[in-house]
């Protein structure tokens, strides 16, 4: 999981925005629309990042289609110190 976090968050082009999304969801779970608005990102960009983070087991969704709320998985919580270490560098 740690290697995945480092790669997905610091090894790719969209890493910085994914870190911002993770931080926002750590404050409180939100849906894709709220994330796009709160982070001033394109809705499609947010959707893409959410899919990548879900694919890699970092986020899970509540399953309510469009209104689905996203939150970190247990696995991500377990490695939260790594995520925090990465988050410290952004903004």
């Amino acid at each position: 999981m740690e290697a995945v976090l480092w790669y997905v968050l610091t090894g790719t082009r969209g890493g910085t925005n994914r870190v911002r999304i993770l931080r926002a969801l750590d404050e409180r779970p939100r849906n894709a629309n709220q994330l796009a608005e709160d982070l001033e990102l394109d809705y499609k960009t947010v959707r893409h990042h959410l899919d990548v983070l879900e694919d890699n087991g970092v986020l899970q969704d509540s399953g309510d289609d469009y209104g689905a709320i996203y939150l970190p998985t247990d696995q991500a919580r377990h490695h939260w110190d790594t995520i925090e270490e990465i988050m410290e560098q952004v903004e």
Partner: protein
Amino acid sequence: MAVLIDAMRVLSALNVALLIGLGYVWGRNFYRFRSKHTLGLLVFAVLLLAENALSIVFFVFNFEGLTAWVTDPSFVPTIAQQAMLTLRALEFAGIAFLTWVTWD
């Protein structure tokens, strides 16, 4: 076979282009995150970029007469040129795939 040498030149140039892109993404991320993981990716991109840039110097510019030597079929037979081209093609495939996952 001049076409084999040309193919090598083209693949080296494509590798350079992709590695500049990867170096840009990883360099920017390293500037931001300062992690050894990102530094590792950046160093990897820089070294492979140097390898491909040198290959262009050797195969395109007549470096110390080396270009004439490596492109002359009487010195480097076709089968050896094919082998070199295969290595270059595999390297290109690897870098292209890595670019695809990194551009995410």
